[in-house]
């Protein structure tokens, strides 16, 4: 744990300290720093934002602006299992919409939300490069191809 003297005593992990150090002097390094934080924690907390703001000399308002601009960055944690339904054109044409709807119904959440128990979150993404297996979905990093609404329950049950 390390203190950032700029703010009112919040703390950040050593990992964040390292990330900040790595990108401090890189032109446009804030994007890369946010990527690494997002990968490490699944979201970018306010205390991390404050710390990066100070260390990389980027105003808080800019950091917030960047995080909200790019869909890959998240202000809140994702579920333990992040379900990404491909809504790329190839998958859409093969019925991805029905698959997405089934996930919404089964999980009782909308795209961009997390289930109450924090277990699942749901996203719609663009082409994941598995068009040959369209419609395709990804749960964490596992790809499931040739999806149909009736396979949704079975897949979710694997993660229960």
């Amino acid at each position: 744990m390390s203190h950032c003297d700029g703010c009112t005593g919040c703390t950040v992990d050593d990992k964040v300290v390292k990330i900040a150090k790595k990108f401090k002097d890189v032109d446009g390094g804030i994007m890369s720093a946010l990527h690494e934080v997002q990968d490490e924690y699944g979201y970018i907390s306010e205390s991390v934002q404050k710390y990066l703001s100070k260390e990389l000399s980027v105003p808080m308002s800019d950091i917030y602006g960047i995080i909200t601009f790019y869909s890959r960055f998240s202000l809140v944690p994702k579920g333990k299992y992040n379900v990404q339904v491909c809504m790329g054109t190839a998958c859409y044409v093969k019925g991805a919409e029905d698959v997405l709807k089934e996930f919404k119904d089964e999980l009782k959440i909308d795209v961009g939300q997390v289930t109450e128990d924090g277990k699942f979150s749901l996203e719609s993404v663009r082409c994941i490069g598995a068009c040959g297996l369209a419609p395709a979905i990804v749960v964490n990093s596992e790809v499931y191809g040739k999806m149909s609404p009736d396979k949704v329950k079975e897949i979710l049950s694997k993660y229960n």
Partner: protein
Amino acid sequence: MQKTSKELRDIRSNTKLKFKSSRIMICSGTGCTSSKSDKILEELKKKGKELGSDVIIEKTGCFGFCAKGPIIVIEPEQTFYEMVKVEDSEDIIKAVISGTKVERLMPSENDKFIQKWHELNFYNKQKRVALKNCGYINPEDIDEYIAVDGYLALEKVLTGLTKNEVINTVLESGLRGRGGAGFPTGKKWQFTAASKSDVKYVCCNADEGDPGAFMDRSILEGDPHSVLEAMAIAGYAIGSNQGYIYVRAEYPIAVERLKIAIKQAKKYGLLGKNILGTDFDFDIELRLGAGAFVCGEETALMNSIEGKRGEPRPRPPFPAVKGLFAKPTLLNNVETYANVCQIILNGSEWFSSIGTNTSKGTKVFALGGNINNVGLVEVPMGTTLREIVYDIGGGIPGGKKFKAAQTGGPSGGCIPNQHLDTPIDYESLTQIGSMMGSGGLIVMDETKCMVNIAKFFLEFTVDESCGKCPSCRIGTKRMLEILTRITEGKGKVEDIDRLEKLANVIKNASLCGLGQTAPNPVLSTLKYFRDEYVDHIENKNCAAGECKALTKVIINPEKCKECGICQKNCPTNAIMGEVRKGPFEIDQTKCIKCKVCVAKCPFKAIS
């Protein structure tokens, strides 16, 4: 350790010898990896050891025939195995040892086994230039790239050509940008070279935004060095020592292969200081995109690399004058770069002999949707859509009829049957209301509603508009509202007019290409499928049956055998009736049109 020209030659000839021995090449593109080719690779290695075989087992890039993945090719015989499973590993190794083939994994056409992969119908009309090394070399081994004349173009340039000679070669080849707009690549190099500045940058656009396309990803996954080498050549030509590749973070395999490739190139001194002992320095850094489509636009991409929100900047100034970090910047697409080394090695005449008058060379397309051979195809410019859809793509599955081909993604349009014989090039596609785009090619059959597909693309642009221009931010939303209304059966006769008026405003008043082209999917479907719009609005009918509010699921009482299977499967208990007591009926107020019953009825009584 810096390699000299002679050392590179030695690597080249030694590795070429290796290519003469047996190699099992397994596709490690995203498609095949999704169907577990990584597990097969492990198993093959394990079995190879167990059976005491010294056959080389390696990853390679996408073969293009992703629909039949996971794919393995045995070199040097070029035997093609499709839909391979982990359990097949032992037989594959044994066959290599005994010099035989595993016939059950080989494709057959006209009752004959296909002996070499290029003999498949799928490849018949293709010509692989940008994808030349995909499926032949291991993308994680720089020696294999060097063996296929890799870094020879860079050597030729650095040791024998002036900057002007390089630019002229690219100019004379007729190469045009593969990222969508088709700007002549040589001209762009010329302009950037002419800008005076102490620092210039070379950028590679690997943001691949078209949702349903994976050409650039496949090149980066299968042949990353070809892009690095071309960027270094561009750096020499325009006077730059620093390159950036802006690649989507959602492409983990491509990012990993690029990292490996950059590391290996640096180790050999093919990137870094004093490349090949000359006074030319060039380095490349990776920057990750973060899921914003607009960042594929050149000025937005530069803002994003600078660590800002990816909003487009007004042009002029153009990037060739004032681009990344306010320095002159050259930006090209991945596939554009993938052609450059071939042009340097084979000459501009060779390249310009391929293609049409205005569009030279080949184009890679990601063929998807309602088509038998989903995959990646590379064809000479001038190939017709019909050849791609039927000869290469194998036609439409399920005996359905072709309705439209969509090119250009959210900026493009739908091409109907009557234009299937259009030879593909930049001009002809624009003329018929679509565009080349980056290479997404989605085929749609008769069950697809064109109003609905226009709505799909508008949803995408509404989501992705950066919001800077009111015309784009608000205009696309209005268009989407109208389209939604039409698909829900609430369309009004004036709506078509309104759509066209809005489209014009958005096209003319938007700052960047996203807004300027956003209306295209609507305009092109209005052009070729106006009847469908009218049918939705006036008759409240969706002939394709996709707009759920406009379709009815009905049981044909004459065909119903009163078995009750449909009733058991209906999620909303909308089906009324009792077994063997008269035909069943659907309560339209309860039916959600999921069509589960249609699929379940053994007597095809429901439609």
